[in-house]
């Protein structure tokens, strides 16, 4: 089976062609960097995404957050539910951890700016 993918690692958006047999990768074509090859491999076996969203702040408002590493794609909406239940301190600084090891993915949810600007 051949799968055609658009690499999402960088804005170039290389078109990748992956040859698969019984979910095993035989060959990858079209990538132009090492990260592209890695992307093709994980995308065909266990697709991962960095999740970016906002989290509520104590006393109102929101602060932007992200997972500090990619999480399994199918867990994105589950992660959203967890993130929406936290309340971030109004004193939180950029890079502070809001949730450790979200849904056992190994990724922490961290703020991407100071709450107070």
């Amino acid at each position: 089976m051949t799968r055609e993918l658009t690499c999402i690692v960088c804005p170039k958006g290389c078109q990748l062609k992956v040859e698969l047999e019984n979910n095993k990768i035989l060959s990858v074509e079209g990538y132009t960097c090492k990260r592209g090859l890695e992307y093709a491999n994980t995308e065909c076996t266990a697709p991962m995404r960095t999740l970016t969203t906002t989290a509520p702040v104590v006393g109102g408002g929101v602060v932007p957050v992200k997972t500090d590493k990619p999480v399994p794609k199918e867990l994105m909406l589950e992660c959203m539910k967890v993130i929406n239940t936290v309340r971030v301190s109004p004193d939180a600084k950029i890079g502070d951890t809001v949730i450790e090891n979200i849904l056992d993915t190994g990724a922490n949810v961290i703020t991407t700016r100071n709450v107070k600007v």
Partner: protein
Amino acid sequence: MSVKADLVIIGGGPAGMSAAVAAYDAGIRDILILERDTSLGGILRQCIHNGFGLHRFKEELTGPEYAYRYELMVRERNIPFKLNTMVLDITQDKVVTAINGEDGLFEIEAKSIILAMGCRERPKGALNISGTRPAGIFTAGTAQRFVNMDGYMPGKKVVILGSGDIGLIMARRMTLEGAKVEAVCELMPYSGGLARNIEQCLNDFNIPLMLSHTVVEIHGKERVTGVTIARVDENRRPIYESRQYIECDTLLLSVGLLPENELTKSADISLDRITGGAIVDQSRQTKIEGVFACGNVLHVHDLVDYVSEESEIAGRSAADYIKGKTTTGKDISLITDGKVRYTVPQKISAEENVTVYFRVSDIYRNVRIVVRDGESILVNKKKQKVAPGEMETVTITADMIKNIKGNTLSFSIES
């Protein structure tokens, strides 16, 4: 209040901050950044998704993180900035009139000005969609601000018109926050957004991208209740028989960005009809000596990394101008064949390596980017694919410029 400054930078977004840092590092100290919002950072503050900074910082940052890095650079250098400050006018003599709650109305006599005001979204009024005008119609960027900065969802069932990057990003964002995005309609037969965004913002969530489709009617009295969409023919005219109704409470518009050049016009600086920004030379100088432009106010960029790069050129050029350095060289105009829609800069007037940025007007495959001086070919670059949504570059070297015989360089796409 009337003051003097070596360099006034209008806009404290990524362009203004990069330009300020570059000018400072080139030895200029008397700098003032004027920003109308409540903090530095510009539009990056609401672009909470990642993908910024891969070129510049070799890592993937979110918009606020990218902005914060530059804010730190500005703060480390103690470059002065005024927030909540609206610039009202600039003159040909480089007098900047601005207003804020603290200083009131004031004027600054600047030796040099950098225009870094960014761009705005094309509004609904420019689209001529028939039907009613209920609540629930937003530009994608307005919705982005509501969701990402204010924490409000503008709707639950959404149709997006236009597949620019902000529209694609908002399709994912609204979905993550629990809304149902029914469709993204794109008038053109291709998307104006990056391929990666179609993949990770639409395909990841099974959101249909309807190419060659547009919204022909908006329904609803108080609030949007639905839209009628239709396929368009090759002349972009809706095909009546293909009309279909989609129930929704929100219509987001992502139909292009326009450089915000009201101030540029007030100083009578000539604009490029196609980019909507000033006509500049390789130093990003406009037709007024000492007035430079960079970032999205000059032409709309795909990547903030390129905005920073361009703004550093403007910052260094302003520093040279303030220090009295002048460049010599004949004026060379860059002309295009139509397949190349525009170039920035539009002219070259110095013998130095110049990276020329340009966009094409359609998708072309297996082509060559050709730059000619009269009959002789200076650049002949093969490309598998070029697309309007992706900015291209070629470098014209100092040597090439030295040896140019004519007064023009022509840019074309050839098979």
